[in-house]
């Protein structure tokens, strides 16, 4: 039987991506919770290049970077496939996964660490820019419930935890980012996503996340 360990932070959208993947596929694993302020030596050993989580360790071999981990898992465990089988659809899915990784992530990070109103506003505007692209380009032509049609696929896994993280930041920082009318397609997609039973069970609790964000902001900035 495969030995699978996941080193991560329960509240990080990148760790959540990997967890959702494992859970959707019914793959048993050992969850190793790392402390951001005191990461284990193993993380540095397994990920010497970036020194960060999540790291998946499969039979002693480490795989790093959440998007790469997700594709790795999908390749080995074909139950509940996350990548489309059609080559073109696959390329499109990968495009949107890359978009999620490259575009909103830095802006979300800026918002999480913003120390004043000006920084917050700048970060929120950047996030809006990217959400606008997603709303108009990815969702406008898509009348299906999910990117994968009736089931979740790799694009859901890339965006879902990010949207959840934005909602947490909204509460923790008392700002409005998503709103209800600004991004209607995105909002309705997200509502479908978080109601999928496996997702519902495995998305980290909103209140707990708000508390942990506030905790880290205090540590980082001296106040929330």
């Amino acid at each position, binding site marked *: 039987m495969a030995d699978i360990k996941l080193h991560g932070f329960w509240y990080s959208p990148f760790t959540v991506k990997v967890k959702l993947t494992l859970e959707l596929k019914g793959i048993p694993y050992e969850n190793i919770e790392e402390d951001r302020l005191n990461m284990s030596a193993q993380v540095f050993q397994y990920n010497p290049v970036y020194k960060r989580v999540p790291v998946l360790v499969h039979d002693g071999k480490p795989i790093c970077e959440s998007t790469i981990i997700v594709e*790795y898992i999908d390749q080995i465990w074909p139950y509940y496939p996350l990548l489309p089988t059609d080559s*073109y659809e696959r390329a499109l899915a990968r495009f949107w996964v890359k978009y999620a990784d490259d575009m909103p992530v830095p802006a979300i990070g800026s918002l999480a660490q913003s120390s004043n109103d000006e920084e917050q506003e700048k970060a929120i505007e950047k996030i809006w820019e990217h959400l606008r692209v997603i709303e108009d380009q990815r969702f406008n032509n898509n009348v299906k419930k999910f990117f994968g049609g009736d089931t979740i696929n790799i694009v859901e896994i890339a965006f879902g935890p990010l949207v959840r993280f934005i909602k947490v930041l909204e509460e923790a920082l008392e700002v409005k980012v998503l709103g209800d009318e600004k991004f209607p397609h995105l909002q309705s997609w997200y509502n479908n996503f978080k109601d999928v039973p496996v997702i519902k069970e495995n998305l980290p609790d909103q209140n707990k996340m708000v508390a942990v964000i506030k905790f880290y902001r205090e540590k980082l900035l001296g106040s929330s």
Partner: protein
Amino acid sequence: MADEVVLLDFWPSPFGMRIRITLAEKGIKYEYKEEDLRNKSPLLLQSNPVHKKIPVLIHNGKPICESLIAVQYIEDVWSNRNPLLPSDPYHRAQARFWADYVDKKVYDLGRKIWTSKGEEQEAAKKEFVEALKLLEEQLGDKTYFGGDNFGFVDIALVPFYTWFKAYETFGNFNIESECPKFIAWVKRCLQKESVSKSLPDPHKVYEFVVEIRKRIGIE
């Protein structure tokens, strides 16, 4: 049905070069369309509405954007010729990891070298050399990053060699003396026709960078 393959590209783009090399490796005939980035064609804007950037691969009218995604697409569709990615999932993940590392590091650091000065430039040079040294470590004693066979990471990385003369001149340093193994690997890659025919002359790239620097006002 004959495949119609078009590549929207810009000759000095290392990202475009990746796709050119891949198409050559697979022996795929295609139409190369040079874009004027100051006057982008309607086809480009329509094919890549999100980023409006080259390269874009268009296969039977369907556009694929982002160079490494296009390379993987070509690999998926023309899978029976010259495989470029390992079939073993772990090694495949490693190949993706290093290609992603190239994306995250080499282009941005290189760009910093020819656009900045003073301390910022020195910091970029240092990081750039460190990145190449890390890649050298990854290469080890292998012929290519892909092992005995030229592959995904080699394709992701080798195009940046065409920009080295520009980096070296504006950064005032010599890459071969810092990373001889890296340059030795480049030379092995250049012996492959798919690579040598797809890469422009580094001197021409250097002249192009001189032009841009003038245009954006760096002196």
